C-alpha cells in the first residue's frame, strides 16, 4: 500500500550543518499491516513518518500510496490526502481544546462533510471500542493523558483512512496507559483493517508490533 523508493532527505542541505536525515530508504507497508519504526533518538523515525504522511518534503526518491506517487503533489492535494486517506496521532496536544470529546472524534468527518447521523453513529462506535463512551461530553482538559490519546486515536480512524501514522503516542503515558492504548490500537487494526505505522522506542510498542523496522542513522538496518 505504501511504497518508498530510494528516498533521501537532508536538513540544511548545502550548509555546514547539513544533516542527511534519510539515506536511500526503500520500504513497503502492506494493507492492514501493524508496524513500528524503531531506533535511537535522532535516527530519523519521525522524519520518515512525516515524509510518508506528506507533512514534509523529500529531496529525492518517490513515495507511493496505492500505486499513486504522492511525494511530488501540490499543497492542496497533500492536504486532501491527509484528510481523506491518512490519519495522524501525535505525542501530545492532539485535541482541539474547545471542542468536546465527541466533537473532537467527529472533527475529520465534519471536515469531510459526512452526515450528522453517520458522524454520531461512528463516534459512538469508536467510543465504545476505545472505552471512552462516558466521556463523550467532556472537555479534553478534564481527561487523563491516556484518555486523551484514545480520543486522538478515535479521531484518526473515524473517517476510515487507509493508514494511521502515530508518532511516539505513548511517550507521555505511564506503562498502564501505554499498554491500554496499544491494546486498543491492535483491536482497531484487527477490526477495521486499517494499517498502522508507529514511530516509537517504547518497549511495549515494540513488543506489540507485528513488524519492526529498525532505523539507524537515517538508514533502515533491519525490517
Amino acid at each position, binding site marked *: 500500500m505504501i511504497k518508498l523508493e530510494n528516498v533521501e532527505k537532508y536538513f540544511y542541505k548545502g550548509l555546514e550543518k547539513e544533516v542527511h536525515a534519510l539515506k536511500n530508504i526503500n520500504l513497503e507497508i502492506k494493507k492492514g499491516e501493524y508496524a513500528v519504526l524503531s531506533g535511537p533518538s535522532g535516527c530519523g523515525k519521525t522524519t520518515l513518518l512525516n515524509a510518508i504522511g506528506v507533512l*514534509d518534503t523529500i529531496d529525492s526518491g518517490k513515495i507511493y500510496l496505492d500505486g499513486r506517487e504522492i511525494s511530488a503533489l501540490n499543497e492542496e492535494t497533500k*492536504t*486532501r490526502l491527509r*484528510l481523506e486517506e491518512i490519519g495522524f496521532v501525535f505525542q501530545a496536544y492532539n485535541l*482541539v481544546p474547545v471542542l468536546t470529546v465527541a466533537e473532537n472524534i467527529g472533527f475529520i468527518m*465534519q471536515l469531510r462533510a459526512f452526515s450528522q447521523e453517520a458522524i454520531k453513529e461512528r463516534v459512538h462506535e469508536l467510543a465504545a471500542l476505545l472505552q471512552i463512551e462516558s466521556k463523550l461530553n467532556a472537555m479534553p482538559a478534564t481527561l487523563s493523558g491516556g484518555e486523551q490519546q484514545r480520543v486522538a486515536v478515535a479521531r*484518526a480512524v473515524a473517517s476510515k483512512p487507509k493508514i494511521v501514522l502515530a508518532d511516539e503516542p505513548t511517550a507521555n503515558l505511564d506503562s498502564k496507559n501505554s499498554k491500554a492504548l496499544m491494546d486498543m490500537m491492535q483491536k482497531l487494526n484487527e477490526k477495521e483493517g486499517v494499517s498502522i505505522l508507529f514511530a516509537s522506542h517504547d518497549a511495549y510498542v515494540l513488543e506489540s508490533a507485528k513488524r519492526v523496522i529498525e532505523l539507524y542513522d537515517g538508514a533502515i538496518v533491519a525490517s
Partner: protein
Amino acid sequence: MYRLLLKLSFKNAFARLSRTLLVIVMIAVSMSMMLSIEGLYDGMTNSMVDRVKRSDCGEVSMYSKNYRTSRALKDNIANAQSIAQTLEKKKGVKSVVLRLQADGLGSTARKSAFSTIIGINLVAEEKFGGFSEFLKKGSMDISKNGVLVGSELAKKLKLKVSDKLVFSTQNLQGEITGMALRVRGIIQTNNVVLDRAALYVDTKRLHKLLGLSAQSATQIALRLEDEHLIELLKKRYADLDVKSLLELYPMIQQMQELMKIFNAITFFIVMLVVFIGIMGVMYVSILERIREFGIMRSIGMSYALLRRQIFAEALFVGLSGYVIGALIGYVVLYYLKVYGLDLSAFAEGLESFGYSSILHASIELHYFSATFLAIVAASLLSVVLPLRKIKHMSIVDATKVVI
C-alpha cells in the same frame, strides 16, 4: 462543517475570557463615547442650523440686489407680497414669510443700543419656524405697541417684560422717526445676530412708520421641502439676490465642515487604536495555538478553512464589542436627544454665543453603520499578520512548537 467552524470560532474567541472581555469592553466603551460625542456635536450644529432657519432665513431668502450691503430701505422688494403668494403655491415650498427690517437705536430712559426692528406676521412666523418656541419670558403679543425683544439686547438695555422703550430710525424719506414700544416678551432664538439686536413688531405698524407700501418687504424667507429648488429660484428670480442659508451664514458651513473633519479624525484614531487592541489579542491568541493549528493542518484541515475560522473568531470579538457599544451608545444618545445635556451653569456664556444651555444630541443611522463597517474591517485586518505567520510556517515546525 460550517456550523462546526462557527462553533470553533466562537469557543476559541471566548476561551480566554478575561482577555476577550477586556477587548470587548474597550470596543464598547470607546464606541459608545465616540457615538455620544459625535451625536452631541452634531446635535449642537444641527440645532444652530435649525434655529437659524426658523428664526431668520429658512432654507433660502430673497433680497433686492443691493440690500445686503446697503441695508437701506430704498433697496426693498416692492412686489414682495405677490412674489410670496406665487411661491406659496409652488410645489416643494413649505412656507413663506415676509419681513421688513430697519436699523436704528433702541433706547430706554437710561440706556441705548444699536437695534434692528423687524416687522413680522406672528401667524406666518409660527407656521414658518414655530416662533413661539423662542419665547423666553412674557407673551407673544405684538398688538398695538407691543414688541418682542432679543434676549441679549434685553440684557444690554436692562429690559424686563412691561418695560417701555423707544426705537428711532430713518424712514424711507430720510426723516428721523420713532415709535414707543412696550415689551411684551423676551425672545431667545440662539441666533446671535438676532438676539443681540432684534425688536419684533407688527409688520403693518412698521410699514406705516417707515413709509413703505404694504406690498413691500426687505426679506422673503422660504422653508423648502426640497433644497434643489434653490437653484430654480435663483434662475427664476435673477433680478433678486437669492441666497441659501449657507451662503448667508458662511460661518455655519465652516462649522459643519470643521465638525465633519473633527468627527472623521476622531473616528479614524479611535478605530485605529481599536484595531491595535484587537490585533494584539488575536495575535497572541493565534500564536498560543500554533501547535493546535499545526495539528489541525496535519489531520487535513485546509489553510483556507483555518483562515475562515480565525476571521470568524476576530469578527465574534469585534462584533460583540460593537453590539454592546451600539446599545450603550444608543441609550446615551437617546437620553441626550430627549433630555439633553444641562449646562445651565454656563448659560450666560453659551447663550451669548448662540448656543442653548441645554444641548441635545442627534441620532443618525450613519453613526452606527460607519462604526459597524469600521469594526468589521478592523477585526478582519487585525488577523492578517498572524495569518501570514501561520501560512508560511511549515506544518511540521508548527506541531513542534512549545509555547
